[in-house]
């Protein structure tokens, strides 16, 4: 082998190895730097005076209602930094989004894998891809300008922007995730399962609901978990359509503010290194940890199912 070819091969091996390392280093840097800006909450006395874990989760103001007891007002004269209004807002939007997207997404997946003629399936796939391709800022715009008005006209909500409106728009963005992963799981169930069920006299519907769907249950579950992770971290839809009021309220008809929207709305004006800055990074760390766990669980469940189905098919 000529010297030049060998050297070139060596150089390229080095280039590709470095690329692999760069990618992995950045992934750990993301961990590190989101967490690094959170650390003052645990160590810096000046920051701790205004923001610490006890204040985030335990502080309670005087007042007759919960919306006056748990308050997020980090820039007021006497900063109040309870995270409860924001956490409750996040959970409300996520719950509404999942309540819409889970049934619709799974039903559509069952329909297209078990009942739809091949031609219809050819239509559904690009529709789902297009829906997934809509940028979340556009979905947020639609919810803010169009959907909110329609819903208010139809149901007479007191507040135009509320958890129903924001959650529904979020649900639109979650449907493609749930559909795609569930449909993959349903299609991976071996034909022999269905044939055995038909041979016993079960109808197509009985087969789909009592045989195929349970066999694909891990994939369906994983799709819910991954959709949950997406919902918790989704920013633009909730920033625009949620009403942007950090209000401690369990009502779905009140405006809300999520963790992600709070970061997006307040990080622009915050003083770098202040308690408020660290508190926003703390929310980011919280989001990171929650989504990291839900993703790990989701991916792990899907891998387990793939392995089992490959075993069953062979």
């Amino acid at each position, binding site marked *: *082998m000529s010297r030049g070819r060998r050297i070139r091969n060596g150089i390229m091996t080095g*280039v590709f190895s470095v690329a692999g390392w760069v990618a992995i280093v950045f*992934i750990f840097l*993301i961990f590190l730097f989101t967490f690094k800006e959170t650390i003052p909450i645990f160590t810096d006395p000046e920051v701790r005076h205004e923001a610490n874990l006890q204040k985030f989760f335990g502080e309670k103001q005087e007042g007759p209602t919960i919306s006056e007891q748990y308050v997020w007002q980090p820039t007021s004269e006497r900063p109040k930094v309870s995270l409860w209004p924001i956490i409750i807002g996040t959970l409300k939007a996520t719950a509404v989004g999942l309540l819409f997207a889970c049934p619709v997404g799974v039903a559509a997946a069952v*329909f297209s894998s078990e009942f739809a003629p091949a031609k219809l399936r050819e239509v559904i796939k690009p529709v789902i891809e*297009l829906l997934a*391709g809509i940028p979340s800022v556009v979905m947020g715009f639609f919810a803010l300008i169009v959907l909110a008005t329609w819903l208010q006209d139809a149901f007479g909500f007191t507040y135009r922007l509320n958890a129903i409106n924001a959650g529904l728009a979020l649900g639109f963005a979650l449907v493609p995730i749930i559909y795609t992963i569930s449909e993959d799981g349903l299609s991976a169930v071996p034909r022999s399962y269905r044939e055995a069920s038909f041979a016993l006299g079960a109808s197509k519907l009985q087969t789909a609901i009592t045989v195929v769907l349970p066999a694909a249950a891990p994939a369906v579950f994983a799709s819910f978990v991954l959709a949950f992770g997406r919902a918790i971290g*989704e920013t633009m839809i909730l920033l*625009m359509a949620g009403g942007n009021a950090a209000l401690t309220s369990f009502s779905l008809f009140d405006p809300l503010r999520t963790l992600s929207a709070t970061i997006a709305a307040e*990080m622009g004006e915050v003083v770098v290194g202040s308690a408020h800055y660290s508190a926003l990074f703390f929310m980011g760390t919280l989001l990171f940890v929650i989504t990291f766990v839900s993703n790990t669980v989701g991916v792990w469940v899907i891998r387990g199912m793939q392995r089992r189905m490959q075993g069953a098919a062979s």
Partner: protein
Amino acid sequence: MPAPAVMTAPNKRIGDKIAVALLGLSVVIIIAILVVIIANIAYHGAAAVTWEFITQAPRQGLTAGGIMPAIVGTAALVILMSIAAVPLGVATAIYLHEYTPAEGLSLAWKRFRVSKGRPGRRRLFFRAMSALLATVTRSAVANLAGVPSIVFGLFGLGFFIQFIGRSIDRATQPPGEVLWGQGSLLWAACTLALLTLPTVIVATEEALRTVPHDLREASLALGATQWETIRRVVLPGSLSGIMTGAILGISRGAGEVAPILFTGAAYYLPFLPGDVTDQFMHLGYHVLILSTQSPDVEATKPLLYGTVFVLLALTFLLNLAGVIIRSRTRSRSHR
């Protein structure tokens, strides 16, 4: 013997039909959502998109004029992002798929364990470590894909701007001057590149997997080096798959707003970005500003719809390009 239950042909039961219709209804709902959103935006947006709208800057406090700076800013951002994300993503995937052991971590480790006292144990150890690195990288990439985009924005602010940017300023600028340590086109593009990296890596690895192993072995048996095999055999065979993945990743990055909120997007700029350290206007950010901070909502509505229309058209065109490339290669490989 009890009387048998009344049997009807399984597929003709009325209850079954209703249930299947309900399942079908969910598909109708999904299609309806997409059609309504697109129709609404196309109807109101197409009317607003004129030549002036595309080629002029905003005027009168964003209530008149066009969106030219936002289009240019978005284009510059997407191009810079692609320059950073695509080569790095493709190279990482090539490393993962071509240079790390194909047998996987558990088998590589087992082979090392049973090799005690035999020659070549060192090599097997490195092979196992390389497999470990690949496994860690793959799961980290899978997790990175699920990290919320706003967290990428925080990272961009904390790492690129506060850490790297400020360090460059301290080394090169006179004290008190800030050039790199603030939001800019460069840092926003770097942040978005990280966001699109997982998409590119996963898609490229999938494309590399479609190249049969025999081809690589044939090439190596003919005396080609590994790099020659990759360049002459593997890359040509997987190029369209890689391009599809890259385009889909870029289209996702083009529509994201959360990561650029505090890494360089500007509310309004009278000039176009001329340097990577400049701030920039962005279509998605412009949509956010027009729809949440406009002093006169009704007056800006046509501008808002026009901007959404242009943004949506841009991302859909990118998506479409990806889908077309993919379907063309699929039909070719089936022949």
